[in-house]
């Protein structure tokens, strides 16, 4: 029996700045995890990853990250991805500053 597919978001870093970004359903790259497109189907996830990988002038290192539905949109499942949504814990730098 095949393994149950865990929903995904497509994430990457911006080429110019390095910022963590997420692919939205309308093909934008957002700094906000909850704006990401939550992909429930494995084939669709792979298609969206291919789309992201083709955005070579905008992002680098695109991959699929596990996520779950939350009240305000997708939420990260793993602590690594949770850290990527907000920045380092020692300074209010990166996203913590950008999103204020």
């Amino acid at each position, binding site marked *: 029996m095949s393994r149950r597919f865990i929903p995904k978001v497509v994430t990457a*870093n911006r*080429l*110019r*700045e*390095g*910022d*963590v970004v997420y692919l939205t359903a309308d093909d934008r790259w957002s700094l906000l995890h909850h704006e990401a497109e939550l992909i429930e189907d494995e084939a669709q996830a792979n298609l969206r990853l291919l789309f992201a990988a083709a955005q*070579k*002038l905008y992002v*680098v*290192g695109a991959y699929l990250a596990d996520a779950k539905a939350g009240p305000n949109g997708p939420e990260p*499942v*793993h*602590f*690594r991805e949770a*850290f*990527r949504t907000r*920045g*380092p*814990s*020692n*300074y209010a*730098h*990166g*996203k913590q500053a950008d999103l204020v």
Partner: protein
Amino acid sequence: MYSYSEFDEAFVRARVAQFSQQVERRLDGSLTEEEFRPLRLMNGLYLQLHAYMLRVAIPYGTINPRQMRQLAHIAQTWDKGYGHFTTRQNIQFNWPKLEDVPAILQALADVGMHAIQTSGNCVRNVTADHFAGAAADEIEDPRPVAELLRQWSTDHPEFQFLPRKFKIAITGSPNDRAVTRAHDIGLRMVRNAAGEPGFEVMVGGGLGRTPMIAHTVRDFLPKADLLPYVEAVLSVYNTLGRRDNKYKARIKITVHETGKPEITRMIEERFAELRPLFGGNDQKLLAEIEEAFAPPAFRVAPTDAYDAFYKADPAFRAWADTNLHDHKASGYAIVTISLKAHGETPGDATADQMREIAALAEEYGHSELRISHEQNVILPHVHKSDLPALHARLAKAGLATANVGLISDIIACPGMDYCALATARSIPIAQEIATRFDALDLEHEIGPLKIKISGCINACGHHHVGHIGILGLDRAGVENYQITLGGDGTETATIGEKTGPGFAYDEIVPAVERLVRAYLSVRTSQEETFLQTYRRTGIDPFKAALYDGEDSKDAA
């Protein structure tokens, strides 16, 4: 102090120009990321968790005030106002934008600095004793030899694509402050029976997923033979090193799989071939480098002001007791500026702090600075009569923390707060431990104790050689911390022993407190250090403190 030659400067500027074009071509799409990645790594530029990271070389940890000011300028202009000094005696900038990196490299080149060979499978930044040129126990300043190795290894055509990265550490003292036994090649200066200086050559040390203490392959190598001998070691490794499995590609595995007698034989055989080819040119160059590293003109002056201040001011005395070390020149001291203020990020310095440190080096320290692998900054030559004034200035800049060698002087890698390879965070653990023991007011009572924290198995935080080592891992999607005890990075180097199951994030600091309280309860006197106690008692009392009868959770 040594400054780069015209050849060096032209070489560095040519690299900046070359990489600037490569960045342009990446940004306009002429280069793919697959094509660009090895090029950026050759110039010290990584893509980390939240941003790019630029690793700048500080060869053998030696830097001058002008260079320190330029690092401050870079931090303020192109980063977020601070830099992070690393366990490799480098500095890392955590937030550069790709399009700004050429300007940063240009600014570095303006002061004779660069980011070359701070990444890749080549000979990395050569590290050295951070008290080099100043230590009372030093046989010779190891930096001229380190500089010779830097020049020899930079863009060496044979050694740009080694099986894996290659790290060389060197100390001019019998006391090892450069963790030489945990490097691919460790060099420790010794004297032979005739009193001549030479090197004990150690090969195959390293931490990471397979921690190993280096084997001594030569008890005494004449100083003049060093370069061909090092080249022989590299040559043998380049031939035998595993390229089929990156986890088995380091020379420590080669030494282990080949066996010390056979690898020693091969090194000696290759050395016999190489030695005549050098023809003395290396020694001519070394003599020129040594001249440039001539010690400053030390002054002779009374130290009464220092003695009086030491007696009268408890804060100064506490700082002097921990942050000063013996200097080779009478009346002088080596000053360690702690970058470990309680609750701050180990190794970070703001642009303002960097500028103040540069100014202090000029005013009180013969314009010399070192970066230590323990993530602190050293003023190697300060006359004792200047120490009260220096201490006052450091205190004003938030740089007078009296904790060098104590429990809050923690080595911590960037961990999962920054590093793409990390499996757990290091920095907040270090911050919490420092804050906890500061609040308990136990730090000076505990005495010398080295805590080292790594956020993954690659061990950039040197946890294997920490008296208390902490390794952050991902256990089923949860941060988990393993503890090792009894590690030692000095001339009596030892890999720490794993205590047992790991601890969850919110359990690790209480676990460290239990360990320390166990030490305080079983030490024979205040003079018996944590490491001495551990070696006397073994692991049992510490395991009992960690796991018996407490509410420790096995999060593993």
